[in-house]
């Protein structure tokens, strides 16, 4: 039974990453926690992953607040191009 719950570090960190978005299944989480009991490296990865997720969230907010616009010249060039292609 427990053989099915044994996973590699690669699989454990994949689940850990998925869990950062709250999208890991309960079965996956159980596998991850069992792995973490025996793997100190992945424990460290998991802890650092949370730090990184907070950093990414801060960055996401910053990016959302940014509004990108085309320059007036770019818009004029596009208008000329569209006009040419309509003819």
């Amino acid at each position, binding site marked *: 039974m427990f053989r099915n719950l044994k996973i590699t570090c690669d699989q454990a960190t994949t689940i850990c*990453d998925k869990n950062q978005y709250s999208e890991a299944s309960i079965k996956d989480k159980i596998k991850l926690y069992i792995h973490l009991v025996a793997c100190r*490296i992945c424990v460290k990865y998991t802890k650092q992953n949370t730090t990184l997720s*907070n*950093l990414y969230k801060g960055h996401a907010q910053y990016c959302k607040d940014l509004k990108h616009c085309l320059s007036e010249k770019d818009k004029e060039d*596009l208008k000329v191009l569209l006009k040419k292609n309509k003819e």
Partner: protein
Amino acid sequence: MIEEKHALTPNEWIDNYADYLYNFTISRVNNSDLAKDLVQETFLAGLKSVKNFQGKATERTWLVSILKRKIIDHYRKINSKKGQAEVRMDFYDDGENKGSWPEERVPQNWDNSSEKQIEREELRNQLEACIDTLPEKYAMVFRMKTVQEFETEEICKELGITSSNLWVMIHRARTQLRKCMEDNWFNN
């Protein structure tokens, strides 16, 4: 009930939608020149398809659907480029150590004071620089999921990939980003 039919006004496209489409695109491709090209291609494709517009969707929705196809085409192009997606090995991929950490990739201890400095421009710049080192397809999926916070289903639909593909890409992106941030920020 009579359904309202929408009309197309190509003469007003640039003024009404250019910025919206550009903003939509740059959040996905993070490259200003490429975003401009894709927006331009969208308007040109829209002009060619004017006859096919049935008026069921709004003009903006219709243009966005064309743009999404252009972005998918771009994604597929970069996905098939040989040698472009150089992927560093984060775990042993065969032998008795398959799935384990190679020594040089094992997470190191971090200076935790960096955690308090998220607002700093320097940190944002380093993070952006690290994202830019990712293979383009990983960077795109990572940005959509983590920075733009799209739903998994939406990304899969938009890029034509399965959720398994998506999570593998997210995992590889995050593992490489972690290493890049460790080398250039946390332990620098």
